[in-house]
């Protein structure tokens, strides 16, 4: 007997009678004999619930998790505080055991929540239309690139800044290779995208230009200047943004971005070894019908009651098949719900407070580290919650030392940027205390 399988032998007998068979095998006669599996699968004995819990505790216990350490690791995935109420909402099983809201009248809860999510993303990004979520920040960048080529037909080139997360650039590379798009990378200079070089590279062949803000090094880009360069060449400008930063920083939509995407993990989603997280994607009204994925819209029933439905569906794969704007079907709805609850709980003041405290802590740490003899801050421009430090030894060696004091150090920049030798990217969230930062500084100083 299995708890997820309800049939008793009597039940099965009744069902078989209803079907008009006497043996279960009769249901599988359509499978060619020569390929039928003639043995039991090698999956082992079923485990009880207690045994599963023990086994999973053992497996997860083989990991060192961030709750046991003081972590300064970010680089795209951030350890912000997650309020308790979020998971209690996510565990409402009317939400998490539902499918995509195809039947609107019995899915009003989810549809409204995602309509609220779209509104929140529009507010943060300064754009008119947001979709119901993408797989993650990296694939959202890839979809923005594809969308740019759909809007700018016959232009087959995408330009991306090297100051965009290496993880995202790798994913974009895979997509561009597969769909035969030219991918050009523009260098950074003093920690930000080299806008002069961008001006030289962008042309009438360019469908879209993609930058990140704050960029991978935590530095702030001059979006307005770049938007102008990109638009002069007639291309679309995509900005990948940290949503938490948008409580403080000017909305990219107000600075000329045509598409704003980003990794939404920081909005109430656990690290989870990289997923499930969510990507967000927003654009202008003008490009609304080119947006990939699901979009929720407001409407009314026959009595005039307000309600919500999936809309603009003629863009989507289940209607348009090979002519769809994207093949995306399942997205990251539950993670988008987490982001919605997070932004509701934090609200106007809370998100600003999270952003401010994270930024202040980063700036405090930068000041302290800058005073150390063996370390220097790599870039001098304004930054948000992350910055790059150049050390006197390899990051691997330093991190090993830090670990002995229960500190997880920063990301090793040299693995992606050969010119940033001994470069470490340190990230700060509101969770780090002044004392922990002082301890980090003391430990760094102690590494000889």
């Amino acid at each position, binding site marked *: 007997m299995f708890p997820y*399988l309800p049939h008793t032998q009597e039940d099965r007998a009744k069902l078989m009678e209803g079907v008009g068979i006497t043996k279960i095998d009769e249901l599988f006669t359509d499978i060619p004999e020569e390929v039928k599996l003639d043995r039991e699968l090698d999956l082992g004995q079923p485990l009880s619930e207690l045994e599963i819990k023990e086994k999973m505790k053992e497996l997860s216990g083989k990991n060192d998790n961030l709750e046991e350490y003081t972590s300064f690791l970010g680089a795209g995935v951030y350890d912000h505080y997650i309020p308790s109420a979020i998971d209690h909402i996510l565990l409402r099983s009317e939400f998490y055991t539902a499918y995509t809201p195809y039947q609107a009248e019995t899915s009003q809860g989810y549809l409204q*929540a995602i*309509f609220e999510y779209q509104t929140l993303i529009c507010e943060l990004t300064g754009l008119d239309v947001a979709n119901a979520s993408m797989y993650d920040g990296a694939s959202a960048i890839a979809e923005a690139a594809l969308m740019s080529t759909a809007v700018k037909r016959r232009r087959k080139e995408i330009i991306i800044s090297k100051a965009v997360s290496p993880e995202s650039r790798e994913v974009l590379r895979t997509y561009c290779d597969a769909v035969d798009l030219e991918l050009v990378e523009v260098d950074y200079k003093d920690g930000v995208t080299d806008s002069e070089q961008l001006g030289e590279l962008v042309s009438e062949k360019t469908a879209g230009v993609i930058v990140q803000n704050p960029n991978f090094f935590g530095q702030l880009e001059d979006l307005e200047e770049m938007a102008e360069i990109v638009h002069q060449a007639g291309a679309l400008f995509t900005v990948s943004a940290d949503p938490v930063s948008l409580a403080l920083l000017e909305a990219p939509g107000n600075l000329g971005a045509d598409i704003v995407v980003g990794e939404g993990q920081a909005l109430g989603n656990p690290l989870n070894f990289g997923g499930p997280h969510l990507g967000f994607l927003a654009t202008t009204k003008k490009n609304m019908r080119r947006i990939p994925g699901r979009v929720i819209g407001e409407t009314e029933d026959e009595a005039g009651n307000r309600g919500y439905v999936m809309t603009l569906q003629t863009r989507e794969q289940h209607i348009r098949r090979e002519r769809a704007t994207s093949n995306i079907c399942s997205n990251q709805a539950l993670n988008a719900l987490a982001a919605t609850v997070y932004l509701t709980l934090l609200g106007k003041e809370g998100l600003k407070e999270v952003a401010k405290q994270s930024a202040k802590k980063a700036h405090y740490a930068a000041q302290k580290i800058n005073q150390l003899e063996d370390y220097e801050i790599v870039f001098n421009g304004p930054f948000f919650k992350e910055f790059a430090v150049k050390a006197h030894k390899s990051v691997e060696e330093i991190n090993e030392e830090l670990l002995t004091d229960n500190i997880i150090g920063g990301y090793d920049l040299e693995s992606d940027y050969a010119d940033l030798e001994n470069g470490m990217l340190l990230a700060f969230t509101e969770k780090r205390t002044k004392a922990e930062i002082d301890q980090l500084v003391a430990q760094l100083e102690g590494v000889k």
Partner: protein
Amino acid sequence: MRKEKDLIFEMSKPGRVAFSLPQDELEEIDLTDEIPAKYLRDEDPELPEVSELEAVRHFTELSTRNHGVDSGFYPLGSCTMKYNAKVNEDVARLAGFTATHPLQDEKMVQGNLELLYQMDQMLSEITGMDRFNMQPAAGAHGELTGLMIMKAYHKQNGNEDKNEIIVPDSAHGTNPASASMVGFKVVEVESNKEGLVDLAALKEVVSDKTAGLMLTNPNTVGLFEEDILEIAELIHDEGGLLYYDGANLNPIMGQVRPGDMGFDVIHLNLHKTFGTPHGGGGPGSGPVGVKEELVKYLPKPLVEKDGAEYYFDYDLPDSIGKVRSYYGNFGVVVKAYAYILALGAEGIKQVSEDSVLNANYLKEQLKEHYALAYDRICKHEFVLSGKKQKKNGVKTLDIAKRLLDFGVHPPTIYFPLIVDEALMIEPTETETVETLDQFIETMIQIAREAEEEPEKVQQAPHNTVVGRLDEATAARKPKLRWKSEK
């Protein structure tokens, strides 16, 4: 029943908060000294200002305006809406998993790597493939990945002119969408009267341009493609590859394996077959599996084992690259792993048997009352047609909406496209005889209503929080966000 619900923005009141954060320890730092004004926002985003209780009540009320598997029967065809075991939710929430960062040193996350490694082995065993990668985030993403692999394979073998993907007319919409996204030309092949791929029609479209065939088996009308071995031979003889859309794997687990049927590339939907919740449309997980000769094209990294230690192998020069950041929807993989542990070999096979038994039982009891598209043994699902009822002016959409009044989530409707007024029904193995009988009774009642009082069905739903919604206006005059009246 009818009741509008305020948006969270409409409940907002300046000064209310639902957060509590530690005191700012660094009052002395003034960010305006550090970040020039030109980078800063002039105007705050309009985020809600509510108390914690208001927020919790709001989302709790929204949840009551939603139907999940836990609320009631959910026979949504091709979506495998089975029970989502609660223990899986618990174990996936262990801090040892959730509080691990994807960029931590491999030595610190050996448990995660071990789980990914074992999952690869278990999925390979279940499907008869040689190697899996968990990076794709959903079914369609898995398809995209699989097609990229097929493209890379043909390219490396100097067969770039192989640019056509054959897709049956009964296929999921994602199949042609994924194929064309990767730059393949989509060639549709007709189904025959029995609802299966028409071999003669297939022979006509297969050529030296054929890069591959995408097939769901059992297909979307719930029938096993009996000619699968001939189909495989046909495709392979032309140097093409066979792609398996794993959306419908549930009814054949432990009975037959895609790898043994000749499939070269496969994606699975962990959120269908392996009991992880659909989350209202995601997160899913769409691992991709391949046969030995295609392993080198899989996304990177792969997890390898050296002695007792696990590590990520990025040294894969022929890999298509990354299709998503890091290692996919890891938290979903954790739940699917726990699901397989709970069932073991014996349970997995019982799943397929019971899912097929349930579907055939419903089919046999309902075929008198609704037109049955294909009258033969089905697998996990079957397709009815509402064409009898349509004669009385009752459309399949009406039948679906009437089901809502009985607390049942309707089947998939108007799909597959090859059946007129289609109702695609997949009960799954986790439903009791009593639930199935109740559904049969409800469906019979609706069939009777369609004859005797059609307007009752046409005007449904009657008991939901909103009446039938106007989708046409929503698409014509899109209102896609709330806006402050300020």
